[in-house]
């Protein structure tokens, strides 16, 4: 039922994109590129949510994990003078934040929402407290234009002429989909999130599984943070995640806890924002920008109201596992 809606919507959107491309190729490509770039951190952050919730852990601290990683990644890169080292530091920080959440939510069986909220507040406080001005990245991140593929009309310039983070984000969705649905790890992860009792009976170490999954998911939050400070803005500013971690949570649910679905949702969100910005650019309609800017959010609410009721979260999400 819902799948049919999703396919229909996808076809409608793609048709519009094609039509727009025929009418104005440059503008269409630039708006789509805007949308994709907008979606990159959202995709990565939504993957964090997917892994955690599929394992039965709510991660409301994605925002804080991203912010800490953006901070550590930027200053790591600036101080070492090496973008790769900086990115690694960002990813490592994400994993530490992931382990922090795992320790609280899994090992200590704390309330998961509280554990996530602590991360958010802590990240805001620490990054503001220790922020220092005057640091600059040693270089800009390279763009990778994939020869051949990048020459395909429409798809090429949008998809195959990007920074490395963009490819990583898209790949992460596909890889995670395969891992979740085609591997033993995925089977176990889903079991741990749906029926931890049965998983335990069949020999899966629920606690360990959850701990590792939440920790490694943090690495993706780290990548999302590093994208923001090292690639997108080439700078760190206080509070620069600007609510994207929360939006990603919505996107994860929008995508029905499915990596590909979440990526599609993030792209849809990016597209809505791209259109909002283009409507302003072209001054097609004279309405207050506030209305254009709230458009994606209103659209999301309306869409959810229409296709609601058929997406289910993993059954055990939010519950610490108690061995019987």
């Amino acid at each position, binding site marked *: 039922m819902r799948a049919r809606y999703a396919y229909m919507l996808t076809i409608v959107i793609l048709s519009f994109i094609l039509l727009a491309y025929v009418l104005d190729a440059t503008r269409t490509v630039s708006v789509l*590129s805007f949308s994709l770039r907008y979606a990159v951190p959202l995709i990565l952050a939504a993957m964090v949510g997917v892994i955690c919730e599929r394992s039965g852990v709510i991660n409301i601290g994605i925002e804080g994990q991203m912010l800490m990683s953006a901070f550590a990644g930027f200053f790591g890169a600036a101080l070492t003078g090496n973008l790769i080292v900086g990115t690694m530091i960002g990813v490592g920080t994400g994993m530490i934040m992931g382990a922090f959440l795992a320790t609280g939510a899994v090992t200590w069986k704390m309330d998961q929402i509280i554990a996530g909220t602590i991360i958010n507040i802590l990240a805001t406080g620490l990054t503001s407290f220790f922020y220092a*001005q005057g640091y600059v990245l040693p270089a800009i991140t390279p763009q990778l234009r994939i020869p051949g593929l990048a020459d395909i009309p429409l798809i090429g310039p949008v998809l195959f002429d990007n920074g490395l983070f963009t490819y990583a984000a898209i790949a992460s969705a596909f890889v995670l989909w395969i891992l979740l649905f085609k591997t033993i790890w995925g089977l176990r992860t889903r079991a741990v999130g749906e029926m931890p009792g049965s998983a335990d009976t069949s020999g899966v170490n629920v606690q360990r599984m959850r701990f590792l999954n939440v920790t490694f998911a943090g690495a993706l939050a780290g990548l999302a943070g590093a994208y923001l400070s090292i690639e997108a803005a080439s700078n760190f500013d206080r509070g*620069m995640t600007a609510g994207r971690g929360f939006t990603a949570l919505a996107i994860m649910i929008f995508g029905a806890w499915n990596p590909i679905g979440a990526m599609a949702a993030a792209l849809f969100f990016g597209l809505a924002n791209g259109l909002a910005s283009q409507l302003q650019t072209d001054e097609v309609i004279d309405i207050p920008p506030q209305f254009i800017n709230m458009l994606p959010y209103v659209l999301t609410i309306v869409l959810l109201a229409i296709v609601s009721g058929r997406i289910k979260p993993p059954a055990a999400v939010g519950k610490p596992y108690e061995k019987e």
Partner: protein
Amino acid sequence: MHRKILAVGIAAAALFLTSCSSSTGEAAPEPAPAASEAAPEPAPAASEPAPAASEEPVSAATMDDSDCAAPANICVGLVTDTGKVDDKSFNQAAWEGTKLAAEELGAFSKYIETTDPKDYANNIAQFAGKSYDVIVTVGFLMGEATIAAAAEYPSVKFIGVDQFQGEPIENLAGLVFDESKAGYAVGYLAGLMTKTNKIGSALGTDTVPPVKLFGEGYKAGALAANPDVKVTLVYHEPNNAFGDPEWGANEARKQLDQGADIIFAAGGATGNGGLIEVAKDPGAGTTVFCIGVDIDQFYTVPQAAKCLLTSAEKKLVSGTQTLVVAAAGGSMTPGNNFGPTGIAPYHDTEGAVPEDVKTKVQEVLAGLEDGTIDTGCPACLDN
């Protein structure tokens, strides 16, 4: 919010304060200098006594604010808008101006960063309670709190940065700017410079008047220089309008993709994201350019130096400095003090700007100065 529209960073001040701050006896932490490489400032000696002081004041080096009550000691306090003094922008510029003034006066200076707008009055009261002589409040949002404080503490001189004054109040001077003039000047430059006849922008929210004045002035100036130019004004949504560098970068990139070759970025960190993105373009400094805002962003966003044509400047540092010195010396003019606006030097893009363009821009600046050129603002705010 407003604080962030401005981007600051006067290198002169930066070096100046690194060299002198230890001797001003500041308790507040020092923001790291924005750009210390280009500081041509001949700093006056830090320990130089205040020339106006008739009796021997406590040396600024050793004094703290418990000495403020003594008439010979001058104390200057600054309350930021909800932001930090290292915001590369508004608050920082005002603070640097304040420090320069304190140096000049041999005065003690200190700041408080506001975290909640409801604390404005309390933060002002902290200074007033210690008998500070001059209190600088930053940002138009603090306008009412400053007026109230001026009434409550008649012996204290207040300077409201970016606060437009209605009825003049004896002990309150507003430092205000006509942003549309600076916007017009850089727009005029952009209109002459564009090869594609498309110029763009990444702006903070249009619900903050100075941002809109910059934007509308930019558009008017560009059209005056080149009637064929297509000017794109894109504003961030009001939420987090000045703290979203990724959006600024993304928006700038999109407009470049659509053929714009000059981007005016005005909106705190959001705008800075736009500047840096333009600098990443392979054509940066040759075919595509960026324009900064508020203060010479060559110093505050060195990453963008490559593409930075100029910045639409509000001379906040010197404006604040002048007013503080006047206030401490008793020669402050109550009511509105219009601070100078203008454009920053071309710096690295000097060679890319043809001489005749420079000449024309100079003429426009002169016209704006003497009022023969009308930017269409503030009426433009109703657009």
